[in-house]
């Protein structure tokens, strides 16, 4: 039971990550290969506030969200100066630099990471695993509602215009700078939420939990599911959480299988399993 609850929690956290990256990459079209950095900022903020100031999870969580949104706005600034491939590489760089900062600066706990992060509690009652899973699920649904809302409101339309053509978007009245930064802010804030949940669930974090390969994994979730859609981000996150578990007997080949899947998807199904342009989704929606 505990095993399944843990998987459920991971699924929730990964879904939030996928949904949040989807705003930056899927809606706004800003290739970000460093999303784990934002996740890490959220986790570290929450962990450090909780351990150093002794505040509860319920204070640390919103603080982490605000902090990550702020850092997201700053780290999103390069997207105003550099584009596409330059941005892709810059975001890889940001991931490395953020991770190295956590790892080599004493304040962040150095190589030992941060331990003793309190598990969430209400009054004197420590949440049970099931309660934590429920809470994570609620946050996940909330994140889904937020990202869905972003996608169907005016901001979503503006973001998609920026993704397709910045010049045409600005000629249509879209303030490209503002929209890009907003995408980074909203996306980072949600990643901060995921980070905080992760930190208080694990109760122990190190810099290596937020390395570049994780960024690729998150990106893979939205690409495999179907980029730019809420359903795709969910499906991708769930698949990439469960698959490694299913492959556990083949632990030695896990990464290889995963990497080959990634290649095959890009080669033969780049629109994802249930993206707007995927065969499966077109069939499903035509019948309905």
């Amino acid at each position: 039971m505990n095993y399944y609850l843990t998987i459920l929690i991971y699924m929730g956290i990964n879904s939030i990550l996928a949904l949040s990256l989807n705003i930056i990459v899927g809606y706004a079209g800003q290739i970000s290969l460093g999303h784990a950095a934002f996740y890490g900022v959220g986790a570290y903020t929450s962990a450090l506030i909780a351990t150093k100031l002794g505040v509860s999870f319920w204070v640390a969580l919103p603080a982490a969200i605000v902090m990550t949104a702020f850092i997201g706005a700053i780290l999103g600034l390069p997207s105003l100066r550099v584009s596409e491939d330059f941005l892709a590489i810059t975001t890889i760089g940001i991931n490395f630099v953020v991770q190295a900062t956590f790892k080599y600066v004493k304040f962040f706990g150095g190589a030992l990471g941060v331990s003793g992060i309190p598990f969430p509690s209400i009054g004197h009652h420590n949440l049970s695993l099931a309660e934590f899973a429920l809470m994570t699920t609620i946050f996940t649904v909330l994140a889904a509602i937020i990202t869905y809302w972003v996608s169907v409101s005016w901001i979503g339309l503006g973001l998609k215009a920026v993704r397709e053509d910045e010049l045409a978007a600005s000629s249509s009245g879209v303030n490209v700078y503002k929209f890009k930064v907003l995408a980074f802010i909203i996306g980072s804030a949600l990643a901060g939420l995921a980070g905080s949940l992760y930190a208080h669930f694990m109760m122990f974090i190190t810099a290596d939990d937020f390395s570049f390969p994780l960024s690729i994994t998150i990106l893979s979730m939205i690409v495999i599911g179907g980029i730019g859609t809420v359903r795709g981000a969910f499906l991708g996150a769930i698949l990439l959480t469960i698959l490694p578990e299913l492959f556990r007997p083949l632990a030695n080949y896990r990464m290889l299988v995963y990497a080959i899947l990634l290649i095959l998807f890009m080669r033969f199904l780049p629109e994802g399993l249930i993206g707007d342009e995927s065969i499966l989704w077109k069939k499903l929606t035509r019948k309905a």
Partner: protein
Amino acid sequence: MEKANQKSVILEVKNVKKRFGGIQALKGVSVTLYEGEILGLIGPNGAGKTTLFNCIAGVYHPDEGEILFKGKHIEKLPPNRIAGLGIARTFQIVRPFKTLSVIKNVMVSLGHRNYVGYGRLFKRPKKDDYERAMELLKTVGLDGKKDEISANLSLGELRRLEVARALALNPEIILLDEPYAGLRRHEEGRISEMILDLKKRGLSIIIVEHRVRLLMELVERVVVLDMGKIIAEGSPEEVKRNPRVIKAYLGEEEVA
């Protein structure tokens, strides 16, 4: 009431200069656009026509000179602000939002007021907005394709989509950059009809075009740009016979 005076100036470009590295694309260009008129802007390849549009639309900021829209300085404003003020444009090389449907393309522009500030950003488009978008698509004859992904449209349809997108800004001025380029004869006729219709609605229009022939029945006044300078101005007939214009076009496929 305001429209009563045919001769009132709506846009004034004064001595605009723009340089790209070693190329002086505009060498002090002055153009006046009157309310409700269609102005033709012609000139050979590389004359600076698109650059002038880009300066008016805020894509580039002139190195020198001023641009006044209804008496207000706009030469330092970014494109989205200028679009919001009521100057819309189309692109010489069409720039649709490729993966969005035709109606969504128009919706993007239709939402321009909601992109200002933060309050309306998170509101959803309403039924009125869709109806307005459909109206605009009807104006350009694309209502039958509203759910088509815009990447699937023909060039002629894309040019009309760009006009619908421009109109969605509810503009007072519309800048059309070679709306006929690459079109077949029967499509040319369609575009001309559409432009005359825009004029009837009271819009002020500048059309860039290589060939004076196409502008004959549309415009009263033509400005000729060559190597970043205005070399002639007048009715299409006058301009066609102007020796400086003929000389500028020497070696080009056609003047008329």
